[in-house]
């Protein structure tokens, strides 16, 4: 694949990204549920795996002609199949991301970054939350700003996603030391000290899956 081809976020790439995310989260669903069991209700892994599985099934459908449509359909899959906090938020994230991407006819890395930023903004609004509260935002926000920085420095799609993945993983790791102040886990804030936030881990897994997918699956 030429560099230009690779850097076009077209329908097929979007389908591959959704599939990669679904596989990765599916493979880690037990770990995610166990993280959620510490101070939450232990269903996060099942929720995410179910929703992404459905997103994967839907994203290949013929009536999606753009990457934007694929991501929107993925978001709707979350909203149609699971509820809970993360279902609402990831659903909102993917739908907004699709919306952000949709403005460009031939979306490239900059459009992807714009889409991601729309996604984070939507999560912040729907979740009435901000980074620092031990949630998915603590992985999502740094990931998206790393993506912007890398892009602004002229990075390729691969490097944009790789830097996002690294920032997401660092962000997820940092949640271990935080006390939750949003979501169900805040009612058990002591219990979760020392444990990473499940939603932040899902974010890290998704960006890692995307970075690996774009760079030819050489990782994970």
């Amino acid at each position, binding site marked *: 694949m030429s560099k230009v081809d690779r850097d076009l976020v077209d329908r097929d790439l979007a389908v591959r990204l959704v599939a990669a995310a679904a596989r990765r989260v599916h493979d880690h669903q037990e770990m995610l*549920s166990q993280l959620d*069991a510490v101070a939450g*209700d*232990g*269903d996060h892994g*099942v*929720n995410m795996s179910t929703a992404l599985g459905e997103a994967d099934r839907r994203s290949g459908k013929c009536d999606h002609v753009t990457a934007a449509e694929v991501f929107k359909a993925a978001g*709707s899959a*979350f*909203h*149609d*199949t*699971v*509820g*809970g*906090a*993360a*279902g*609402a*938020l990831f*659903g*909102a994230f993917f739908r907004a991301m699709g919306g952000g991407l949709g403005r460009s006819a031939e979306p490239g890395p900059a459009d992807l970054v714009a889409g991601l930023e729309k996604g984070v903004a939507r999560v912040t609004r*729907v*979740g009435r939350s901000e980074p620092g509260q031990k949630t998915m935002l603590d992985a999502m926000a740094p990931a998206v700003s790393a993506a912007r920085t890398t892009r602004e420095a002229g990075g390729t799609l691969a490097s944009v996603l790789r830097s996002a993945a690294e920032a997401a993983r660092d962000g997820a790791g940092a949640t271990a030391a935080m006390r939750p102040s*949003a*979501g*169900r886990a805040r*009612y*058990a804030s002591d*219990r979760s000290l020392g444990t990473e936030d499940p939603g932040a881990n899902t974010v890290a897994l998704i960006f890692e899956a995307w970075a690996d997918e774009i760079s030819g699956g050489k990782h994970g």
Partner: protein
Amino acid sequence: MSIRYRRFLNDPSRAVAEMLEGYVAAHADLISLQDGMVVRAVPKPAGRVGLVIGNGSGHEPAMIGWVGEGLFDVNVAGPIFSSPGPSAILTGIKAADRGGGVLLLVSSHAGDIMNADLAMADAEDEGIRVEMVVLYDDIASAPKDQITERRGGAGLFFVWKMVGAAAERGDSLEECAAVARRARDRSRSLSAAIGTVAHPVSGQPLGDPDDPALSVGMGVHGEPGTRLGEDVEADQIAEHMICRLIDDAELSDGDQVALLLNNAGSVTLMELSVLYRGAVSALEKRGIEVVRSWIGPYATTLDMAGFAFAICHLDEELPALYDRPARGAGFTMIGR
């Protein structure tokens, strides 16, 4: 302590769907299933306000038992302990719409609010008039100066009963929402439990099954609370919990309350009755009169060995709504 891993189910992942089928079959005179939701067998007259609630399953008879005359029009039951998603709630809003607008009553849990929010935005896009009132009453879940951070608990049954009556008699959407807020602001609850329960699908216990302490202020999903000594008797528990409720609600001599004692699952009626007796005496010795009483399973957490007290500080208008007839599969009031 007490935990039961073995359940009388088929494939646990089909438990919610099969429950809805069985429950509706047992109560076909009152409710039916429509797109996987519980709806009234006989819909409300046109023009009335529709009442909808979406909630996680595992809390039965909440809210499948609260659909019917004088209660909800539609209950959207989500997976166990998890709110349904926005699409399902949207379908519920549409089913409840009788032309008078729809009131979404949401028990304050992060997921429930977000999903309701998203559904409401979609419903408005489709031209349906929807209002949402977020309900909270559990005094253990946040301090009073952050009252909107509190969770929904057993006190919400007061709200649901009264809003149900208001909607049934023909109050407008704004009036129903105002009743909801007034009843909510006058209601408080506090829960307690020992041990925990196992999630039917994952088999995971919520919390520590070997902890022998009584935890006061435990959430409906096993979220931890304040631990009370192991030998504390029913009267002491009731006194402790009622005192905290009185303080928080700022009740005083001469006030009138409705008192509810909720069975979170496997507490015997013998224990509930003894606890109830203790609560009445704790209230009465402070000059607070119990003028309406509810005792039984309202919102359970599967077979949790726990309970909750809830009070509603009555005013002049609420008792009339409280006393109107209601007829659901899990709650019947003949009316006075």
